[in-house]
């Protein structure tokens, strides 16, 4: 079974996480490391994928600046999205040569990981035809947008656990109205322990992708995630 190292990093700035992804992507492509699943949270930040339209950011650049919210145009598919504390962000750096070279299947598998994790909490989430992402009723709980280079993935998914949903009024997420966004805590009517959720999600990720998940193991010797995260840009 292929191994997957989990890097559970807590709150990390968007730039540092991006840099970390690029470093790990390079290592993975060169075959120096196993698959990696990065889990973290970001301070409020807006990102625009290749299909991003400025119109889907509903406030001025000056307003965003006054709130300390930066906008990044990035190399993933999809439109505008927003990250904020309380939202679980996952960046799988996995080699699709070992998981079937099939982009759509990979996207569907990411949805499946999230759907199964939510099910553990009694939440019945679903896919909507032609719209990648995970929905509960009419509301979107998780967004997905990825990049692939040399068949190794980067970027990934974001799932609202205890996110402050008012942030989403700043954008039209993936081109939808912001009121269509929800979170696990809103659905359940209680705050969920993020660590427990991450634990469940890691388990489901291993099952869906048939990977042996290794959390903070010693097996990856060529990198020290803390060192990479703490290095300056």
């Amino acid at each position, binding site marked *: 079974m292929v191994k997957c190292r989990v890097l559970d990093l807590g709150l990390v700035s968007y730039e540092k996480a991006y840099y970390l992804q690029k470093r790990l992507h390079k290592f993975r492509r060169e075959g120096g490391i196993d698959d990696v699943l990065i889990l973290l949270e970001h301070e409020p930040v807006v990102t625009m994928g290749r299909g991003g339209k400025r119109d889907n950011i509903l406030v001025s650049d000056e307003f965003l600046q006054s709130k300390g919210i930066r906008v990044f145009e990035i190399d*993933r598919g999809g439109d505008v999205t927003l990250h904020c504390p309380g939202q679980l962000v996952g960046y799988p750096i996995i080699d699709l040569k070992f998981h079937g070279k099939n*982009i759509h299947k990979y996207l569907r598998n990411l949805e499946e990981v999230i759907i199964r994790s939510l099910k553990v909490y009694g939440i019945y989430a679903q896919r909507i035809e032609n719209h990648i992402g995970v929905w509960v009723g009419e509301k979107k709980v998780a967004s997905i947008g990825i*990049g692939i280079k040399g068949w190794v993935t980067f970027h990934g998914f974001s799932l609202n656990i205890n996110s402050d949903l008012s942030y989403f009024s700043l954008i039209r997420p993936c081109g939808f109205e912001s009121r269509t966004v929800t979170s696990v805590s809103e659905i359940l009517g209680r705050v969920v322990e993020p660590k427990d959720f991450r634990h469940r999600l890691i388990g489901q990720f291993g099952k869906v992708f048939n990977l042996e998940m290794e959390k903070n193991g010693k097996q990856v010797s060529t990198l020290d995630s803390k060192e990479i995260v703490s290095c300056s840009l």
Partner: protein
Amino acid sequence: MKEIILPDMGEEVKEATISFWHHEEGDKVTKGEDLVEITTEKASFQVETPVSGILSKISAGEGEVVKSGQVLGIIEE
């Protein structure tokens, strides 16, 4: 002469759009480097340079909708 072909990206990914070329016609290109980026609804995908040489022709320009198996350009080795 080597054709640059959009690889099979798996079932259901039948159409994609050229987001941009990393090089222009006439540029020297090196095997393994990123050559052209394709986007589907939720994924960006880098097509790598298949052989080193000169990018002699770009057959599918930016914004063009392309399909798996389609010739995107030609490299003269």
